[in-house]
């Protein structure tokens, strides 16, 4: 490898951002200004120089968070520091939608235009108003630029927006430990019920940085154009977010298992967590040993809650049994399925539960290092979890000797940067390793060759949190919840035309009607989208569909990630379908042909259909959609392409769209 870095130089600010993450350069080979005699004698190279490739993504974040975009000089300096070919780093940086390779203002506001927000009343007027105040999307005006965004995971408070101002003191130093200390030591701005609740405008205030110049984020939901504009211009002054408990209409109900602490405990207090049953599951795990934990999880019948429903026990056992070392635990918190927000609520409202569950996963699978790959659009979850990990470390619940049991385990947070595909586990590994987030072909499966090519147990947030319930109740009692084939409690993300949108916890087996009556349907229910953009529509009168994996399959639909998006007859269906198609076109990684071009052709056909339904031309377009959809489902590499046609197909076949 003979790298060529070009002549572009980083600015002092860009250099400082990278050095804050990586430390000062060790030699001129790594980009130090002064060349020492040692540098002339020893070249830096080989495996040692290249083994920090996984810090490329945090490095890109560092620059983007500090300056707002990534210049040639900054990329070249980062490449020099990490011995990464600039062409590859450019390929990685351009993969993510949150990074910009062109100059842009430091203030960027992402306005969600995805299905839940598009179905909210007044969505068109809202967008027009935002355009009037901030100018056309993507065009900077008065130091602010706004961008239409895929689902921000704030569907219970639609419409939503996320304002980010680049500056000093950004949380991107979520590399190996750096920055975490700062975040934890930052004083909580609010009182007991959720210092994690308010505190919009996150970002630890670094000494000597004016508040107006510091990195800040602000979540605006439910958003008005006026509030979006205010947050975009001064995110540090945005009003605080409501507590995570507000997303749980059932909060405080004693029958809750997964949501029992949300809205009840202070998410930033480890003591509060322990006072409410925290760390009982881990103690039991240590008491019974890893083999028994594997047995419990297997016997409980727990299956993955991310959408694929793979048996968790089998995954863990297969990982634990691999002779290759080390093993890794990866928590997939890249929740990006439109309409899904359960993992965000879990992480914001009960962060220690996830940390405890990851520790148990590590203990059972023989891993000592866990990665938490967190969605880039979740600033509050990042802040809360960073603080929680720091606390847990300080109290000996993470680190070289967890709970004094001689077991070493630690967790590192890595942030995504705007790519739905990174929720696919092998794409997530590639992203984490500093490559483009493209899915790998399976086999080999992650349990054999996962992160860094090592045996890896990758689990969704909700799945992991279920493990606590399994260990607290015991496998038998857990398996008694729900139905024979779908065991345990399940979280549902209810949004759209309902009175009380939010996260609902019900045992598997409840019907769609029961769930919707809890949430209170408004208007005449025309359709329900189950499972998000990759899921399918059912009619408003199919309320007796049992919400289980087997029940939805029998009904010819899917449970997916637990999205239940209710649409009344005022919502223009063709527009929603077009939005779904746009989503897949935007989010296709581009690796395989059926998905890369098929999603474009699907969007084009739906665009034509949205303009004129009926007639022979419409029939031709529907036939074309079917043919392309079938090939996407059959021949795409990963689940994105394979499911990109599901929702549209169900709308045509079940709802009679375009009929």
């Amino acid at each position, binding site marked *: 490898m*003979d790298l060529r870095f070009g002549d572009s130089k980083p600015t002092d600010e860009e250099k400082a951002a990278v050095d804050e993450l990586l430390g000062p350069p060790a030699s001129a080979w790594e980009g130090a200004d002064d060349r020492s005699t040692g540098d002339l004698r020893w070249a830096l190279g080989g495996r040692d120089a290249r083994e920090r490739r996984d810090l490329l993504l945090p490095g890109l974040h560092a620059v983007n968070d500090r300056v707002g975009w990534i210049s040639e000089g900054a990329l070249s300096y980062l490449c020099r520091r990490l011995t990464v070919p600039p062409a590859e780093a450019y390929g990685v940086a351009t993969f993510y939608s949150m990074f910009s390779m062109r100059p842009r203002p430091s203030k960027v506001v992402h306005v969600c235009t995805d299905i839940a927000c598009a179905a909210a009343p007044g969505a068109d007027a809202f967008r027009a108003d935002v355009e009037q105040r901030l100018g056309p999307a993507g065009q900077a005006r008065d130091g602010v630029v706004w961008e239409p965004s895929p689902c921000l995971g704030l569907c219970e408070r639609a419409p939503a927006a996320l304002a980010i101002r680049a500056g000093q003191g950004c949380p991107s130093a979520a590399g190996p430990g750096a920055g975490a200390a700062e975040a934890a030591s930052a004083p909580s701005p609010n009182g007991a019920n959720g210092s994690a609740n308010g505190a919009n405008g996150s970002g630890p205030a670094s000494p000597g940085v004016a508040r107006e110049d510091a990195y800040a984020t602000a979540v605006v939901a439910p958003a008005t154009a006026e509030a979006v504009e205010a947050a975009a211009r001064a995110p540090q002054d945005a009003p605080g977010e409501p507590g995570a408990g507000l997303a749980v209409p059932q909060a405080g109900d004693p029958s809750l298992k997964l949501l029992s602490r949300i809205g009840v405990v202070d998410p930033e207090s480890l003591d509060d967590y322990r006072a409410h049953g925290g760390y009982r599951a881990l103690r039991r795990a240590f008491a019974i040993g890893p083999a028994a934990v594997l047995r419990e999880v297997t016997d409980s019948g727990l299956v993955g809650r991310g959408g694929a429903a793979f048996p968790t026990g089998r995954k863990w056992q297969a990982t634990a049994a691999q002779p290759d070392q080390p093993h890794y635990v990866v928590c997939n918190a890249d929740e990006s399925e439109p309409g899904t927000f359960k993992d965000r609520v879990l992480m914001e409202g009960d962060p220690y539960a996830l940390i405890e569950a990851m520790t148990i996963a590590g203990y059972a699978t023989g891993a000592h290092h866990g990665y938490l790959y967190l969605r880039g659009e979740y600033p509050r979850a990042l802040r809360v979890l960073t603080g929680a990990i720091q606390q847990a470390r300080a109290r000996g619940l993470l680190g070289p000797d967890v709970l004094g049991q001689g077991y070493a385990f630690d967790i590192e947070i890595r942030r995504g940067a705007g790519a739905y595909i990174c929720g696919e586990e092998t794409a997530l590994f590639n992203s984490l390793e500093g490559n483009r987030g493209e899915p790998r072909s399976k086999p080999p499966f992650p349990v054999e060759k996962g992160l860094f090519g090592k045996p890896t147990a990758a689990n969704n947030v909700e799945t992991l949190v279920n493990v606590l319930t399994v260990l607290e109740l015991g496998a038998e009692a857990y398996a008694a919840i729900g139905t024979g084939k779908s065991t345990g409690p399940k979280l549902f993300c209810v949004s759209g035309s309902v009175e009380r949108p939010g996260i609902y916890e019900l045992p598997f087996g409840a019907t769609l009607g029961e769930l919707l009556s809890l949430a209170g349907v408004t208007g005449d229910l025309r359709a329900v989208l189950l499972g998000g953009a990759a899921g399918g529509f059912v009619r408003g009168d199919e309320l007796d569909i049992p919400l289980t994996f087997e029940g939805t399959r029998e009904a010819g639909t899917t449970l997916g990630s637990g999205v239940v998006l209710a649409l009344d007859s005022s919502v223009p269906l063709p527009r929603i379908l077009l939005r779904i198609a746009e989503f897949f076109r935007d989010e296709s990684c581009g690796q395989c042909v059926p998905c890369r071009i098929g999603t474009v*052709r699907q969007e*084009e056909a739906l665009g034509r259909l949205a303009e004129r339904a009926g007639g022979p031309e419409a029939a031709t377009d529907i036939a074309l959609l079917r043919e392309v959809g079938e090939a996407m489902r059959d021949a795409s590499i990963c689940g994105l392409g394979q499911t990109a046609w599901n929702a549209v197909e169900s709308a045509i076949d079940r709802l009679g769209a375009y009929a």
Partner: protein
Amino acid sequence: MTAVPLNPPRRLVEFTLDGEPARVPEGSTILDACDAAGKDVPTLCYGDTLTPKNACRVCVVEVEGSRTLAPACSRKAEPGMEVRTDTERARHSRKIVLELLASAADLSTTPRVAEWIKEYEAKPDRFGEDAATLNDGPKVDNDLYVRDLDKCILCYKCVDACGEQWQNTFAISVAGRGFDARISVEHDGPLTESACVYCGNCIEVCPTGALSFKSEFDMRQAGTWDEERQTETTTVCAYCGVGCNLTLHVQDNEIVKVTSPHDNPVTHGNLCIKGRFGYQHVSSGKAT
């Protein structure tokens, strides 16, 4: 004579291919088995000198018990597997893949694709006149080779050949995402400002002619490129002592392109700038 390295004997895997028993050495792919059985499975992103990326999906076949179709180029044959290469389902996906590619990219210089489009009855123009195309235009920024990305099907072969699989130069990568993804050097700049060493190994593996010798590009523009009139002569490169095989493509007594045999144990199809592009002095008349 070329020395053929002999590998230790491998165990045979027995499986069923289109209803017929097939036996291939362990580790072989379904495509290897199809080749051995004389079946013609179309491929585009497959390269005989590269690890399959299975990105184009034109070689998909049906494997019994598998929810989706499997790429023949990279799925290994397993004992007892039942593979069907010519089912309705597989043919449908191949047809759509060909339609999608031909509707977005210029496949006029892709070998055999016209034949396949006919065989699978693909109709690339069915997506309408407004169907998005790559629409990039050729990049001519140096005297040696041209990047005509309108013809690119994003097979990743050039990236793999430039990077870790052969050249270790890492001058190019895929940048962007989805339909906007393109093969690019850093900051989408010209090749002359990149790490490119002009070995031309990317041209060697390009399946569509998106990467081509400047000489070929110019002759095609002028309408004088005629493969019927070309002869191929394989010789040994005289620039250094490695002994690379060169295949000189000659038209009207002028060398118009240089390749290397992929089965040559020295080059595996790869050359350096001297072997690939250093032929011009032969025609200049000074090398006597």
